[in-house]
């Protein structure tokens, strides 16, 4: 034979291929036993889970919901008063509006006593009051003794050289009223003490002008001569005739003074207050008050720690003095015109505001133990925030609309063992990747359910999200972007940590093994309690829509 053996191949191929023959029945028995043995060797939990899948699905969702609610309740109850006070103290220290100074009762009384013995006051009290007089009088009281009386002003009385706001919160109100009563007796020449009519309303008095001004010192070491001038204006009586207004004008007295700022260095301003009715319309009388420092303070302004001590305040508060001796004190000054409300400042804790986010990242997916997948990755996000102000106008961030965030993901996914190392159709996978950046740590707890097949797949998710703001976020953001106004029912107490419930839906269109297009949406519902008093606010609802391309690099 020369080597022509290829016919052998054909012989065997034709004779053996296509032949069917069953082995002995014992083979299947052995296979079955071996498979049973393999199943029993799995961890009881997984075996139990795979056998009663549907029951575990329902139980799992129920446990997750109960767990989230419980965590929410515990969170509410565990928040400490200390945290609130810390936030409030910071807010007060950084507020732009200095508190009006409130003088101690003792100093107020002492000054009132001083005024009583002031020769100018004495002169005035001895003067008869004639409300029909055409003479205007202008009274200037100062501790130097200079005085000037102008026509058409019958009585001007300064009861207190340093005044607080004549509001219901003034601690020395009782003493002030007593002082007023004493003066009213003398002014009216009435031996009977007339009670101050605080409670009865008076239309004229209701519209008395009021003004307040806060003025910085001109010089660094406020030497004598720093001046602050304010004008108070307002309608005394809109419908009154000229005669009536003129009459009422004579009844009006104005109380003006300079607030003694509270500080740790003692009184800093010795005030001089002058009154000057300006030649305005009778319906809008204007009083101009001028305060001038006359003595240098004990310490240079630059050395003063309290921000309030770098300014002094002058106020004009009207008092109606009637001929019968009754004095109506405007207990509550007319509030100054409301300044235009600034737009809501964007708060970085508004994680629930409308955002447009673009993400790009790398995620590694390492399977181990056939049941677990370890995922870790880095994501760069660019976010564009928009917030709706109270009047519905969209507002951008004042410091720029776009923010960049780098976040690091790390987490472990448990996979249904029946579907191997990758989630296939119909799997349920609990997932919890911890996302963290410098400003927050976010821990989601989600159950994902995949459905569909082939090119188009869908997935649903339900769960929760626990976010903790870091100190870096709280310290910088409170100082810069705190919202004080426009508190609405929709705002949610944020504090340091908060919980969201999440529900999501998505679609995945597989172009091929490596490329897919994903479109998904998630709804976040805040489940932390609603409090309006805290400084950090957030919107409770957040709907996100995401779309993107998934590329599998190593498959």
């Amino acid at each position: 034979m020369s080597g022509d053996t290829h016919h052998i191949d054909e012989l065997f191929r034709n004779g053996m291929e296509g032949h069917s023959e069953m082995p002995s029945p014992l083979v299947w028995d052995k296979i079955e036993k071996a498979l049973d043995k393999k199943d029993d060797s799995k961890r009881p939990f997984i075996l139990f889970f795979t056998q009663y899948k549907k029951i575990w699905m329902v139980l799992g969702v129920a446990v997750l919901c109960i767990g989230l609610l419980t965590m929410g309740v515990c969170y509410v109850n565990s928040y400490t008063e200390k945290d609130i006070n810390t936030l409030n103290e910071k807010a007060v220290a950084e507020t732009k509006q200095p508190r009006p100074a409130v003088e101690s009762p003792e100093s107020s009384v002492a000054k009132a006593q001083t005024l009583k013995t002031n020769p100018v006051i004495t002169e005035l009290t001895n003067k008869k009051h004639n409300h029909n007089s055409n003479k205007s009088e202008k009274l200037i009281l100062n501790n130097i003794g200079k005085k000037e009386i102008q026509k058409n002003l019958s009585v001007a009385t300064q009861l207190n050289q340093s005044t607080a706001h004549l509001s219901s919160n003034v601690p020395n109100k009782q003493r002030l009223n007593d002082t007023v009563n004493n003066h009213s007796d003398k002014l009216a020449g009435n031996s009977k003490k007339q009670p101050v009519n605080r409670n009865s309303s008076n239309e004229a008095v209701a519209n008395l002008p009021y003004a307040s001004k806060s003025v910085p010192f001109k010089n660094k070491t406020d030497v004598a001569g720093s001046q602050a001038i304010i004008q108070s204006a307002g309608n005394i009586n809109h419908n009154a005739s000229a005669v009536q207004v003129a009459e009422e004008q004579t009844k009006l007295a104005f109380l003006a003074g300079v607030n003694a700022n509270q500080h740790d260095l003692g009184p800093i301003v010795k005030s001089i207050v002058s009154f000057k009715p300006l030649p305005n319309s009778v319906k809008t009388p204007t009083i101009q008050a001028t305060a001038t420092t006359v003595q240098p303070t004990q310490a240079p302004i630059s050395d003063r720690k309290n921000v309030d001590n770098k300014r002094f305040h002058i106020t004009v508060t009207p008092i109606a003095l009637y001929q019968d001796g009754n004095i109506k004190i405007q207990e509550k000054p007319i509030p100054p015109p409301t300044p235009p409300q600034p737009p809501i400042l964007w708060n970085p804790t508004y994680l629930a505001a409308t955002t447009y986010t673009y993400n790009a990242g790398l995620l590694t997916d390492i399977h181990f133990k056939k049941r677990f997948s370890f995922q870790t990755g880095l994501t760069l996000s660019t976010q564009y925030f928009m917030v709706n102000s109270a009047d519905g106008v969209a507002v951008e961030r004042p410091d720029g609309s776009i923010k960049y965030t780098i976040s690091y993901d790390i987490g472990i996914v448990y996979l249904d063992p029946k579907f191997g190392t990758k989630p296939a159709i119909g799997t349920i996978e609990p997932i919890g990747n911890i996302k963290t950046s410098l400003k927050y740590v976010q821990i989601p707890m989600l159950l994902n359910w995949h459905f569909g097949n082939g090119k188009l797949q869908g997935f649903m998710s339900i769960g929760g999200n626990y976010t903790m703001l870091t100190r870096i976020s709280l310290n910088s953001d409170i100082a810069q972007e705190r919202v004080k106004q426009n508190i609405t029912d929709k705002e949610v107490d944020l504090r340091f940590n908060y919980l969201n419930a999440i529900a999501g839906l998505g679609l995945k269109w597989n172009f091929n093994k490596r490329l897919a297009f994903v479109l998904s949406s998630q709804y976040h519902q805040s489940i932390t309690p609603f409090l309006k008093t805290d400084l950090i606010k957030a919107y409770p609802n957040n709907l996100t829509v995401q779309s993107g391309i998934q590329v599998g690099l190593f498959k």
Partner: protein
Amino acid sequence: MIEALHYDKENLELLVKKAISNDRVAQNKLYELLAARMFPVCLRYSKSREEAEEILQESFIKMFTHLKQYRNDGSFEGWVRKIVVNTALQKLREKARSYPIVNIIEEISEQTSVSENNTYSNIGFKVLLELIQKLPPTYQMVFNLYVFEGLKHKEIAKLLNISEGTSKSNLYDARMILQKEISKLDRSSSKSTKL
């Protein structure tokens, strides 16, 4: 009559899915569909029926264990057949380490007379199987992979971790042996007819 694998694709997919879920009924059904075709393959790679059943058993256990890895992108029977062949090769390799082949080569070189006019189409499966099972393990592997699995010498060499040249010479030797055995059969059958 053994039922052929005449399942349409959808039903087969459903069966596979259930089998993945550890449904014993589905697994048994799959076994019944495939065992009849896979067992002859096991016989070709083994030395005895018992050994073939062992190979079949191991193959199906492996198949059910890794069934989730089947991606529905090719013939299911082909995928199972690969598992069977790999399992069989594993067993044969263990045997090949201790099987002497020197004597057989010497034996082949002495036998020269072969009738080229003989036809062997009436040789049945059993006889052919016996002939293959008599081959040394290495020759048996190479012959089966070349003739029945359709692999090239390069692929066989990679699979068995031998050189391409060795694969070719092993196949030649296997053919020679089989040729010789068939000739023996032919001579003995002609003798009996004469008688």
